[in-house]
C-alpha cells in the first residue's frame, strides 16, 4: 500500500535534487532544468494531497489539481522567458557559465 508519506518522500527527494542542482551546477541550462525539477516536485506533492483528500461524496479535492495546471502554465512561461534570456546572454558573452557572469561583484 502506497501511502501519502511515500509520495511526499519522493517529492522531497526530487526537490532536494533540484535545489542542489540550482545551488551547485555552473551551467545555466542545467540550473534552469533543476528549477523545473523543483517545480515538478511541488506538483507531485500537490497531486498526492489531492488524491488523499477525499470528500464526503467520494471524490478527491480538485483544488490542488487545478493549482498544478497553473504551475505548469507558469513554468512554461518561465522557461520561455528564461531560455530567451539565456540565448541573449550567450550572444552577448559567449558563455553559459554562471562563474563568468560576475559584473556586479564589488
Amino acid at each position: 500500500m502506497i501511502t501519502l508519506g511515500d509520495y511526499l518522500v519522493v517529492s522531497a527527494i526530487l526537490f532536494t535534487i533540484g535545489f542542489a542542482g540550482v545551488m551547485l551546477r555552473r551551467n545555466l541550462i542545467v540550473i534552469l532544468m533543476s528549477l523545473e525539477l523543483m517545480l515538478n516536485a511541488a506538483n507531485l506533492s500537490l497531486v498526492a494531497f489531492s488524491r488523499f483528500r477525499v470528500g464526503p461524496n467520494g471524490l478527491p479535492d480538485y483544488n490542488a489539481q487545478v493549482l498544478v495546471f497553473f504551475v505548469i502554465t507558469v513554468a512554461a512561461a518561465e522557461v520561455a522567458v528564461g531560455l530567451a534570456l539565456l540565448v541573449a546572454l550567450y550572444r552577448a558573452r559567449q558563455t553559459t557559465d554562471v562563474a563568468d557572469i560576475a559584473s556586479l561583484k564589488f
Partner: protein
Amino acid sequence: MNSFYPWLILLAPFASATVITLFTLRWKSLSSAISITAVLVSFFCSCLVFAHSAATAPAFVWLDLPPIFRVPLGLTLDQLSRTMAVVVSGVGALIHIYSLGYMRDDEGKSRYFAALSLFMFAMLGIVFANNFVMLFIFWELVGFTSYVLIGHWFFRDAAADAANKAFITTRIGDFGFMTGILMIWMTTGSVVFAEIAPRMPMFGSHATFVAIVALLIFCGAVGKSAQFPLHVWLPDAMEGPTPVSALIHAATMVAAGVYMLVRVAFIIQASQTALLVVAWIGTITAVMAALIATQQDDIKRILAYSTLSQLGYMVMAVGLASNEAAMFHLFTHAFFKALLFLAAGSVIVMLHHEQNIWKMGGLRRKLPITFATFAAGALALIGCPPFSGFFSKDAILAVAYQHNLPIFAVALFTAFLTAFYVIRMLVIVFFGDPRSDSAREGHESPPVMTMPLVVLAILATLGGFAFFARKFLTLPTEKGAAVIVPALAIIALILGVGLAFTLYRGRATEAVKVELLRRKFYFDEFYGWLIYWTQELLARVAAFIDRWVIDAGAVGGSSRGTWGIGALLRLIQVGNLQAYAFLFGLGVIALIYFAVMR
C-alpha cells in the same frame, strides 16, 4: 475751525523732496529754490497755526483692525507742538537760506536740498504726530535723513563711517523705544497719546513694569538726543556739512528726543524710579560732555559736545518733572546753538574748511559780523545775563535746587565748565594773532550767510526774556530760591570765564593737556573693544556651530552615513549567482518564519 493748512506744513517739504528727487536733480538752483519755497510755506503755515490757537486739522484713519489696533493719521495742535513747529520751521528756513551760500559750489546741491526738505517733513511729522506709530515712523525717517546728510560727502571715509555710526547707534535706542511702544499698546490697547493718558491706571500697581516701560520709551530719546551711553555718534556726525550740523545735530533732531519725552511725560512721570534714572542720565551726559569739550581742538566738535551737554540739561529737567524748564531751554538752545554752528560754518568756509581752532586766531577783525553773532551765541550758551541761555539754564538750575541737591551741584559745576570751554574757544578763535595763512587773508562771508546769523543772534539775545518767550511757552514758575540760584550760576560763570581768559589769552598752543579728556574718556576705544569682543565671540560660536554641527554633523554626517552603509552592503555583492539565490532563499524562509510562526 477745521482746515487743511496744518497739513500743508508737513506736505510742502515732502512735495519739495519728491519733486527734487524725481525731476530737478540736474538743475541745482531750481532745486534749492523749490526747497526754500517749501520751507517758507511750512514756516508761514506754522505761524498761521500758531496765531489761530483754535485751529484743528482733519484726521484720517490709516490702519483699523478693530477692536485692538487703530492708527489714525492726525495732528496734535496744542501749544507744545505749535511752538515747536514755529521753532523748527523758522530755524529750518534760516538754515536753508544759509545753505544757499554754504553749499553754493557743491556737486550734490540738489541731493542736499532734497534731503533737507525730507528732513523738514520728518521733523515736523514728529512734532505733530498724535500717536506712537506715526511718531515712530517719522522718528525713523528723521534718522534716515540724518544718515543721508551726515554722509553727504560720502566719498570721504570719515563721513561715510560717521553716517553709519549715527544710524546704527540710534538704532540701539530705537529698539528699546519700539519695545516700549509695544508694551504700552499691549497694556492700554491704544497708541494714541490722548487715549493712553486716561488709561494709565490700567498699568495698575506694577511699579517695576511702569518703570521698565518708561525707561524703554526713554531709550528712544537716549539714542536720538545722544545721551550717555549712546552719545558717541553726535560728535562724529560733525563730518556732515555745517548747516546740517546746525539744523539737525544741534537745533532740531537731537531736541526731538527731549520733545518726545515732554510729549509722553505722563508715562515717564508715572514712575519715580524712571524719573530719577532720566534725571541722572541727563546730569551725567551734561557734565561728561562739558569735561570732554574743554580739551577738544576741532571747533565743530567743541560745539557738538556743548550740544550734548545742553541736551543733558534738558533731559535732566524732564527727569526733575519740569517739562516747562526743559522746553524753555530747548527753545532758547535751538536759536543760540544754530547760531553758533552757522557762525562756525562761516569761519570754516573762510578758512577753506579748516576746523582746528589752533589754526585760527585773531578773526574778530576779519569777520566782524561773524564774531559779533558768534559772541552773542556763546554768551547765550554760557548763560550770561541778559542773553537767552541765562534764563532757561537758570530755570533748570532752580528746579534742580528745589528737587535734588546733588544734581544741582553737578549742574552748577557743568555751568562752570561750559563757561570755561566756550570762552576758551572764543579766545583762541577770535582773539590773539592769526596762526595760519588762511586766517591772515580771510574776508567776511556773503550776505546770504550773514543775514541768517544776524536774525538768529537777535533771537538768541532776546529769546529768554519773559515778554518774548511767554508768547510761545508756559514758563516755569520759580518758587523760593529765586536769589541764590542765579547768584551761584553767575559766580560759576565768572569763575569759568576768568579761568579761560587767564589760561588761554595770547597762547598759541594748548595750555593744559589732559589725555583722558582729549580722548573723550576712551568711549570710542571702549565701544570698539566691546563690539570687537562680543562680535568676535558671537562669530566664533556661529563658526563653531556652522563648522561642527551643520557642516560636519548634518551635511557631512548624512553623507558619511550613507557612504558607510553602502560600504557595508556592497560586501554582500560577491558576484556568485547561486550565493544570491541562496541568500534570497534564506530571506524567503526568514519572511515565512516571521509571517507565519510568530
